[in-house]
């Protein structure tokens, strides 16, 4: 009885948006209010389910919870058929991301009120399909199913970018699609080889089987997976698509892209990179830490040089995601926890910044710094929210960004003091460009006459940002409950890494971390 109900939860969360999309497809084209209402209602229901899922989640356990498992089809394999399952489940690595996705969606739907003024019906359909796609990626526990959702989640954003984007939208959409697809097609070769060699597509079963592969096989499959995820994140040399996509996307697309879509890459790196191939991940960790740290600094400099506010925030994403990548490949408990938490933090603070930029763009139709200045005196409420989001993004203590960055730097310092120090400079540069951005936008005299007549934020705009603001504060003040939800699964992954770690380097790490956390887990039980 209980099992049946729990099966329903994840299925409902993932496919209710799809149902809503189908319903909207049958509404008359002109009934825009109905379409918006339906999308908002359904995304609120899903958000409610997502929060309920979060509350009911047991963070101490490493096993997947609320598992749905239905046989799908058989692939021909070496030793008989390989059953492919429709298998969903949530664990410590995905729980925060799943909840964030569901919570972000009503916010995004509400934010479209002004800037989506044509083809509303199609937009809502793509938005809801995107939610299904993203949730499917985070919840899949079967390799083939994951690959399905991974590829399919591309299409909605491609359309959102290409139809409702800015001036160079077609270029940005194509670039986004081809970059990601190039990675995922190479990942397909990795998937094929992995499935063929192990005879399984079940993620839990695969965890035990990958150690049976030869070292070079592990390295190559890891490489094909990691490349695909690195493009999605994006890790440094692959970051050029992101700035274009963000700049051209409509506000709602940017929020989702920064908020959750990029996290598919970092999530994949943890679950499929480190989780499946601990030995290869350990070998590659210096490379990824270096790429992460360089990305932090490089992204900050990129952002510094921008004259377009939105592009600035987009480049800051490269910098922030550098922290996430660096932290997880430190392969320490602090680093990885910080990394998982920072995924959420980045989603919240960058999401807020994109929302705010969208709001001012709707009023002035420009994102050029030269056109602004002194906005704080005209739009005080806007200024308040902007400063808050900016500080959250900078990592001011008592706001969410601080917790994640602190944990990541702590974890990285244990693994590699050098890259941790490089990363710290990134925080300073981050403060520089974000404060500069705030000064040029909000303070000083009003230089452009058009800015004098700007209206301040209205009730809808304030209310849609409030949930994110509350979460930023909450995570900043009391991060422990959030971190504890992720503890069990992260420790399980680290145990697998420690099992393949050469003994001499294990001495460098604080030996207390695994034991301490497992005793925590015991207490909760």
């Amino acid at each position: 009885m209980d099992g049946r109900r729990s099966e329903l939860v994840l299925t409902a969360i993932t496919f209710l948006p799809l149902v809503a999309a189908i319903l909207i497809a049958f509404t008359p084209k002109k009934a825009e209010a109905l379409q918006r209402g339906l999308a908002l209602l359904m995304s609120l229901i899903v958000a409610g389910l997502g929060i309920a899922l979060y509350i009911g989640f047991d963070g101490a356990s490493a096993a997947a919870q609320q598992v749905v498992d239905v046989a799908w089809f058989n692939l021909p394999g070496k030793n008989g058929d390989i059953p492919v399952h429709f298998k969903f489940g949530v664990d410590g690595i995905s729980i925060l991301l799943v909840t964030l996705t569901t919570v972000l969606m009503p916010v995004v739907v509400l934010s479209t009120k002004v800037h989506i003024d044509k083809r509303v019906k199609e937009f809502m359909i793509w938005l809801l399909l995107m939610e299904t796609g993203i949730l499917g990626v985070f919840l899949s526990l079967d390799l083939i199913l994951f690959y399905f959702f991974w590829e399919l989640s591309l299409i909605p954003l491609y359309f959102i970018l290409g139809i409702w984007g800015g001036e160079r939208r077609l270029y940005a959409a194509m670039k986004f699609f081809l970059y990601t697809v190039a990675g995922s097609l190479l990942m397909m070769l990795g998937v094929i080889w992995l499935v063929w060699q192990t005879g399984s597509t079940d993620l839990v079963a695969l965890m035990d089987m990958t150690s049976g592969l030869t070292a070079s096989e592990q390295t190559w499959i890891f490489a094909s997976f990691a490349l695909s995820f690195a493009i999605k994140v994006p890790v440094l040399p692959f970051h050029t698509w992101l700035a274009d996509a963000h700049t051209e996307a409509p506000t709602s697309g940017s929020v989702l892209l920064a908020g959750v879509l990029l996290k598919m890459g970092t999530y994949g790196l943890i679950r499929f990179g480190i989780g499946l191939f601990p030995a290869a991940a350990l070998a590659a960790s210096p490379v990824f830490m270096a790429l992460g740290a360089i990305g932090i600094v490089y992204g900050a400099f990129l952002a510094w040089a921008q004259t377009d506010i939105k592009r600035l925030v987009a480049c800051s994403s490269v910098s922030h995601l550098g922290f996430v990548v660096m932290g997880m490949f430190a392969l320490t408990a602090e680093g990885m926890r910080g990394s998982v938490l920072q995924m959420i933090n980045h989603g919240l603070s960058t999401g807020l910044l994109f929302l705010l930029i969208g709001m001012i763009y709707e009023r002035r139709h420009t994102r050029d710094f030269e056109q602004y200045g002194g906005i704080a005196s005209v739009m005080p409420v806007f200024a308040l929210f902007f400063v808050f989001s900016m500080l959250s993004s900078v990592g001011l203590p008592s706001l969410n960004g601080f917790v994640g960055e602190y944990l990541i730097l702590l974890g990285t310092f244990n693994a590699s003091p050098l890259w941790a120090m490089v990363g710290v400079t990134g925080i300073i540069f981050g403060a520089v460009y974000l404060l500069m951005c705030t000064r040029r936008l909000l303070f000083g005299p009003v230089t452009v006459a058009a800015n004098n007549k700007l209206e301040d934020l209205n009730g809808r705009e304030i209310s849609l940002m409030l949930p994110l603001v509350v979460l930023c504060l909450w995570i900043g003040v009391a991060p422990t409950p959030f971190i504890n939800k992720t503890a069990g699964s992260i420790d399980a992954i680290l145990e697998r890494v420690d099992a393949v770690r050469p003994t001499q380097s294990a001495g460098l790490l604080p030996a207390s971390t695994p034991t301490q956390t497992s005793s925590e887990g015991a207490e909760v039980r």
Partner: protein
Amino acid sequence: MMALLNNSAMEFQALTSADWNGGAPMLCVTAGIILALLAEVLPGFKPARHVAFLASLCAAVLFEMRILGAPQGTIFQGTFSADRASALWGILFCFSGLLAWLYSRRYYKEEKPFLAEHDILMLCSVLGMMLMAGAEDLLTFFVGLELLSVPLYSLACFRRVRMESVEAGLRYFLLGAFAAGLFLFGTALMYVATGTISLAGLRETGLDSSLSLLGVALMASALFFKVSVFPFQFWVPDVYQGSPTPVTVFMATGTKAAAFAFLMKVVFLLPASAAGILSIMAIATMAIGNLGALIQEDLKRMLGYSSVAHAGTLLLVVTSSLIGDPQAGAPLQAALYYMAAYVFTAAGAFGMIAMLEGSGEHFTKLESLRGLGTRRPLLAGALSIFMLSLGGFPATGGFFGKYFVFTSTLRADMTVVSVLGVLLSVVALGYYLRVIMTMWMRPPVEGQAAPSAYRPAANFATGLCVFFVLALGFAPGWFLERFF
């Protein structure tokens, strides 16, 4: 006659029940041809032609299904094999003919009085394809090949008032005749070297003499011409573009499948050292097809190039089968699945062009598809699904086709070739996405009327294609268990 060549005994043996069962699908199509001819001649029976056409294809599919359940082995005194593979190929040919026929309804205008020829020639071609896929000796195959090709030459120039159509037919005929000559000459050389033309006999004697290898090379060239593999692909874009679109539907799906069916059968004739050349040819074909398609402004021509690229992918399977996939039978399975997905996808995609052309010739231009997404969402949606399937996107049949192909190549240790192939399919997505982008993301051209969507037969065919493309993408297990 083939039986005579095969068996030294000059007597005609009575047909066994296996012969009847295995030959039933071909008999159905033959009966269809005769009935359609009669219906055309007898006064008052004209509409019966359509019934004859549809009924014969449906009956053929049913008999092929029976063979799938109970394979008859080699029949007609060792000249034809009615096994699972040939039955499955046969089903694909029937669908290919059926879809081409559905798309040809209301397509022709000036040629309407001659439509009976069109239908009958198409049935002849289907019969030829069946003969090719099941042939167990080289001459049986040749008869099938000519039975396929000669009707297609005339079908290609079926729109006789149009220059391009006549040119396409002539071009196809000249090159096709050349290929047929190559094939016959190759067969003759092999016969001289080994004294047999049956595949079983060739398998026994082996082909080590340089004479027989030359024969194999000539025969393979003829097959490569039919499947349009580099360097024998030059005719494809022109012929595909010039032919009436329903005929292109048929050519792109049926002909290609039939030639590949036989190619998979005669791979064993090729020396193992040919694997390297085959890989290079496959990659070159994919490169030429995909890069050529990238710069096309005409949708029909673009799909012609894309069909060349797909032939390259299939040649990868041929190569992996030559090198030796550790899972015996997997390359054939991969080729069948890939081709099954391709038949429905390409038939749908070319068929959509046929539909659009019905509302004005200019609709084959990519530019004229602008704004189709808002004006005809269902039409544009179907075409988008076909494009994604051609690009091998998940949830479409094209994905599993690609998945099985690359599984086979990776197992045969063709890692570098697989990576190159995958990277070239990223290029392919570049132009498939351009079609989607033009339809959904660019505003319609001012003053250009939207295409009319009222074409019942073509709509039905499109629905059928969409259904199979999605079914092959969502439930591969269902098809694998029953058919492959």
